[in-house]
């Protein structure tokens, strides 16, 4: 059976301007990252990044 390797082809080459644009974090990127974290993180920390700012609590102690 003939080897059906995909041709390697050329790499993607970007200008500095294009790289700057491509590296910007978009709302869609954030949604993907949210989903990835929730699926990959340990069970007890799946909602960690959904934390909201809370008021200072005087009795907070380190775990």
């Amino acid at each position, binding site marked *: 059976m003939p080897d059906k390797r995909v041709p*390697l082809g050329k790499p993607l080459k970007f200008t500095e301007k294009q*790289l700057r644009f491509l590296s910007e974090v978009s709302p869609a990127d954030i949604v993907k990252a949210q989903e990835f974290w929730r699926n990959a993180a340990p069970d007890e920390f799946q909602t960690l990044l959904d*934390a909201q700012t809370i008021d200072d609590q005087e009795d907070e102690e380190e775990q």
Partner: protein
Amino acid sequence: MTLPSISTSIMTSEFGWNETAGRYVDLSTGRFVRFSDVRDALDVVMDASAIRMNNITQQLVDGNVSLAEWQSGMMEQIKIAHTAAGASARGGWAQMSQADWGATGRMIRSQYEKLQGFAEQIADGTQLLNGHALMRADLYADAPRGTFEEMRRRYERLSNGMQFERRILGEADHCDDCLDAADEGWQPIGTLPAIGDSVCLTRCHCTFEYSATNPDEEGESESE
């Protein structure tokens, strides 16, 4: 670019973020979450990211995808991983400002530049498609650890009034660069090499500790 408000609800999270202390809070106990636990959670996420990158790269080695497809897939995963790492250091999605996303984007761009070089070396044969290529791809999977530490450093400097830092060696074999940096002791914040800039590259497990004053001079307690 205006980012939409991220639709998260405090009802769905078991954690809060104390902006003054720069710490996550376990809402069920009211206690701070150790940053070592946050880093450990990030490591688990990065392991999952590494699997994806390894799979994509193995596809390239096996001739199942083109170089451009591989590069595109790696870029996507790099962005996902660094986006999550940046947010995890800053207290979560809701705490990330436009400037914080800009800082994260700059770190992503740095990875994209390196990846482009990697891809070009594959194209011209300098980098063979073998086990070494897979090991090299793994470096991209480890890189978000550096983004986490840089975003922490950024918060400590800009939002928490910290002015000094010192390198803390992680639980790993240490390269000479990391040993030298740790030997420097307390230095003005932002002056020590970033995590990932040492000879050990993105395999570095070092972290930083911060202080508002120089403990060597004043004997004050520091912030982790």
